[in-house]
């Protein structure tokens, strides 16, 4: 792949804290390598800001290998930028060309308040998980891994659902700010396996109730979430959650 250098203009959202109103700041960065990641480019920009005595831009990042889901940036109108099935840390600067202006915004959702600059509070996801994203396991010796037969297809589907990294891109891109792809992945992952059976009904009811409480919007099946999900989580999971919820709400006596 051709290696080149570029000069860029960045339009970045700056916001002091959750109460402040915030605005866009324009910065320019020079001589950026096409082999850098987007976050490395931000590191260069922050070095530049620190050297000139300015406040560096706050952004979330952790593993920088595409598996933690921390790097939430809405880049040029898409979560995690223009590449498909990709996180911001895995977005490389070869996605851009010399002279480009790039707009970077935080996730926009009532349920994800901005803490500072590009950092949002995704605690709403944690509270949804606390509401039902668990299984009960007896104490004592660990059960032998192969003691419980599980259909291969179901194991694979559960694994696919479990690959959700909780980054929030689904909420960020959804025109309704709906969290259904995330919640359905977490519901599916456990509903497909025998270990999830004891809490199967209460799980889906409680997680959906918590999701509604957090102020997320409602799904209208545009499937933007699936298209933008860095892990390619399928909307078939949303259909599964709908089935689980319909069954649980009609059948449960609680």
């Amino acid at each position, binding site marked *: 792949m051709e290696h080149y250098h570029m000069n860029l203009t960045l339009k970045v959202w700056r916001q002091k804290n959750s109460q402040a109103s915030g605005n866009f700041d324009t910065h320019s960065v020079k001589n950026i390598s096409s082999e850098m990641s987007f976050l490395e480019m931000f590191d260069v920009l922050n070095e530049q800001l620190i050297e000139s005595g300015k406040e560096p831009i706050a952004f979330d990042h952790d593993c920088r290998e595409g598996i933690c889901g921390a790097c939430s940036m*809405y880049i*040029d109108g898409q979560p995690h930028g223009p590449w498909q099935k990709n996180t911001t840390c895995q977005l490389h600067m070869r996605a851009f060309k010399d002279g480009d202006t790039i707009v970077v915004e935080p996730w*926009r959702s009532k349920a994800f308040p901005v803490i500072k600059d590009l950092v949002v509070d995704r605690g709403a996801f944690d509270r949804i998980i606390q509401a039902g994203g668990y299984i009960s396991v007896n104490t004592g010796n660990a059960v032998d891994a192969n003691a419980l037969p599980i259909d291969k297809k179901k194991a694979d589907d559960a694994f696919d659902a479990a690959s959700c990294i909780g980054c929030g891109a689904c909420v960020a891109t959804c025109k*309704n700010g709906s969290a259904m792809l995330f919640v359905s992945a977490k519901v599916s992952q456990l509903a497909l396996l025998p270990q999830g059976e004891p809490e199967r009904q209460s799980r889906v009811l409680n997680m959906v109730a918590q999701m509604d409480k957090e102020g997320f*919007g*409602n799904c209208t099946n545009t499937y933007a979430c699936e298209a933008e999900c860095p892990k390619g989580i399928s909307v078939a999971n949303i259909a599964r*959650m*709908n089935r689980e*919820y319909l069954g649980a709400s009609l059948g449960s006596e609680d």
Partner: protein
Amino acid sequence: MTWKQLFTSSLGKKFTMAFTGFFLILFLIVHVTINACIFLNDGGQTYNTVAHFMSHNWIVRFLEIGLFAGLILHIIQGLVLWKQNRDARPIKYYSNKPEKNSTWYSRSMGLLGTLLLLFLVMHLSHFYVGTKVALYGGDQPHNLYNEMRETFSYWWIVAAYIIGVIALFWHLMHGFQSAFQSLGLNHKRYRPIIQAAGLGYTVIICVLFILMPLAFYFNWLA
């Protein structure tokens, strides 16, 4: 889990939209089939007979209440969803490219629905009100076929009906398959069938409906 919780939850609202949507999809089949009788080219004889049956049979009259209830529920629920979904993102994006990840009509169901509602007000005032007045107040047998011919002799009414059916086309293009997904009916093997059936249904319904005002306006019928 109370019934209220079920119907007011985010998923409950999806179920309501899907169930009432399915009901309206079935209604359109009946509607288009009966109206297509005008194409028998018998001067509206068959069509008027069926229309008379539909406006006088008590089972049909009873189902009509259900139709209006379903329609109103679909509209109210749609408006509630529209407001809640708008409130879920108080600050909009400065730069957004939704065309990269979804179709324009799947994102415009509220707008298309509003167009359809406006169309319905006009449509009911054209034909439904007249039928009811004839049913309860008129002593002459009501000739709905002639009423259609009269209404569709004006080009602007024909144009308004074409716009209405185009809105219906895109609303159904998303709504048909969306209703299955909302009720959890998403299956690898059946999904392509549902999508093909949705496309076939939408095209057939809309082409037939659009041909009706055109047929009268251009005098294709006896």
